[in-house]
């Protein structure tokens, strides 16, 4: 089972975690509105409810470690350190976006932060993570690759093939499954004969553990241990983050497949409420602290939106740029 022990926390540390989660939450809430205003287009998958995973996980990584993500990756990108203005500009399709307007919400990239992208093909990132880790191992870099993917990805052959390869070759991959119980409208138990994802990893002789993905402190502790272990070179680890998505799958989803009551129940144990309740109970923060953190996060989002608005469009003359890295003719 997931660990239920109350982990120790200081005021400073607690507030920092809160701030990071609020940065994502405020960013996502603004994206929702901007979609309504048609500033953001295409598919938009929001991360509300899952903030503790990105925030808790990313802190243990070094700048030289590699990160592979999914199409629900705004949170991963932001806490990895991609500047919020560059992320927002990408969602606007602007030249200043972190993928120069070519990728949009599902394809955020940043080479300098070794962020190898949002991938819009479910499970498409797992084999890439295995390859990055192979390079890290062969080049003796002492870096690791962290690979985010959803519970839906577990049904794909690429999940199984990648886990096996990573384990067989003892590669430094940390597989982080964000199990939010649904793949679009398909509940985990409608898709999997065995719903315990850690069992599947063990079938490939990989260490695996479930984690309460609503508890940012638990995520932080478990990932930190796992990262240290993976870095020793003894092989990959899988952590199953048990979490929940508060909003619709994308902007086109009327959510026929789940009850409002179920969503409300999960919202009551959401990552931000869980942390603030604990910090308040320990006398480590006040409502004022919360409001200040939220204000700061919103100010950062405001600035990002202003930057995106003011940014130029990529010139149409450059449409065919970047298809090849080298000269073509």
């Amino acid at each position: 089972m997931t660990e239920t022990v109350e982990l120790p926390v200081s005021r400073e540390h607690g507030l920092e975690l809160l701030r990071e989660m609020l940065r994502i939450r405020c960013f996502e809430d603004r994206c929702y509105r901007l979609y309504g205003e048609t500033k953001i287009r295409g598919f938009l998958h929001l991360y509300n409810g899952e903030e503790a995973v990105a925030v808790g996980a990313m802190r243990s990584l070094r700048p030289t470690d590699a990160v592979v993500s999914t199409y629900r990756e705004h949170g991963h990108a932001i806490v990895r350190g991609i500047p919020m203005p560059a992320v927002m500009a990408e969602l606007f399709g602007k030249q200043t976006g972190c993928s120069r307007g070519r990728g949009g919400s599902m394809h955020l990239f940043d080479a300098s932060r070794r962020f190898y992208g949002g991938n819009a093909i479910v499970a498409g990132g797992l084999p890439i993570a295995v390859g990055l880790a192979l390079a890290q191992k062969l080049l003796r870099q002492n870096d690791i690759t962290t690979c985010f993917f959803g519970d839906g990805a577990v049904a794909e052959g690429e999940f199984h093939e990648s886990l096996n390869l990573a384990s067989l070759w003892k590669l430094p991959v940390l597989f982080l499954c964000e199990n939010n119980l649904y793949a679009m409208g398909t509940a985990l138990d409608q898709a999997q004969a065995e719903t315990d994802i850690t069992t599947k990893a063990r079938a490939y002789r990989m260490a695996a553990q479930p984690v309460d993905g609503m508890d940012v402190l638990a995520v932080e502790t478990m990932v930190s241990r796992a990262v240290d272990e993976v870095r020793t070179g003894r092989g990959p680890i899988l952590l199953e983050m048990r979490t929940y998505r508060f909003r619709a799958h994308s902007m086109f989803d009327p959510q026929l497949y789940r009850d409002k009551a179920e969503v409300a129940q999960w919202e009551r144990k959401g990552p931000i409420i869980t942390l603030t309740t604990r910090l308040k109970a320990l006398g480590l923060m006040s409502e004022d602290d919360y409001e200040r953190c939220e204000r700061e996060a919103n100010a950062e989002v405001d600035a990002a939106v202003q930057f995106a608005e003011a940014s130029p469009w990529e010139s149409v003359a450059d449409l065919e740029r970047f298809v090849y890295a080298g000269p073509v003719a």
Partner: protein
Amino acid sequence: MPDPLPDSRSAMSYRDAVREALRSALIADPRVFLMGEDVGRYGGSYAVSKGLLEEFGADRIRDTPLSESAFVGAGIGAALGGLKPIVEVMTVNFSLLALDQIMNNAATLSHMSGGQFNVPLVIRLATGAGRQLAAQHSHSLEGWYAHIPGLRILTPATIDDARFMLAAALACPDPVLLFEHQYLYNMEGHLTAGLEAVNLHNAAIRRAGRDVTLIAYGWSLHKSLAAAEELARTGIEAEVLDLRTLRPLDEQAIIASVRRTRRAVIVDEGWRSGSLSAEVTTRIVEQAFYDLDAPVVRVCTAEVPVPYAKHLEDAALPSPDRIVAAVRTVLESSGSP
């Protein structure tokens, strides 16, 4: 008891037409079933199968895990085993995870077994760009699939074809891929009165004209019709040919139209290099070279993975403006009609 089918003359969307096609097929033959990701509880990712789970039950509207290779392969097996599966692969982009099953199994089994086995499987896929979904969700790979012997490739572009091609596909003893352009689902129209079936053999002239033939399919058909409208204002009469079936191609219809108009512009959302448009061009050159008054011109997607930003995506895709410009080039290179 299922509800009666709606009056075939009432206005409907392309989406409704596909849904009615599915309903009719499910009602007509108990061996028919639909399976794919989120076809049931979610209601279909494009809301095509909305309500069908309630009407036909979970055995016949079968939600699958995210396992394209496995459920397409299972569709092949079910077809071999005597059922009539309709497999929905949410979009052509994800069909690449099932490409091995489609190409190495579905397309080969009849021939490889010396005709002992056949695979009466229908695969439905949404295709195409135009919704700012970026490269991995904007492919138009129907031309690729048309490369493969053993498959039949359909591209319904009208309400009539959306409504009736499925039944014709199910009547086929071979694997059929039915490409529904994602941009067309919201298109509204009327079924042709009295129409009860369509064939899969003939391309269709959607607009008659004498000056140039626009050859298109899918969403490009509608862009071509818009271009023809625009050209008509300046006295140029374009004929618009809807290919409907990309494999086998209705070569006769293509050649007959080009012989009449003596000029051809091919509009294809696929990339130009090594493409369906290249195939159509070659057939024209092989068979009607001396009937041409001008070189064939193609309007295709720019040779880039389709970008997210709207202005870049628009610039990458065929548009009525680009088609009009191409027609003018063709006319100039042959002297005005």
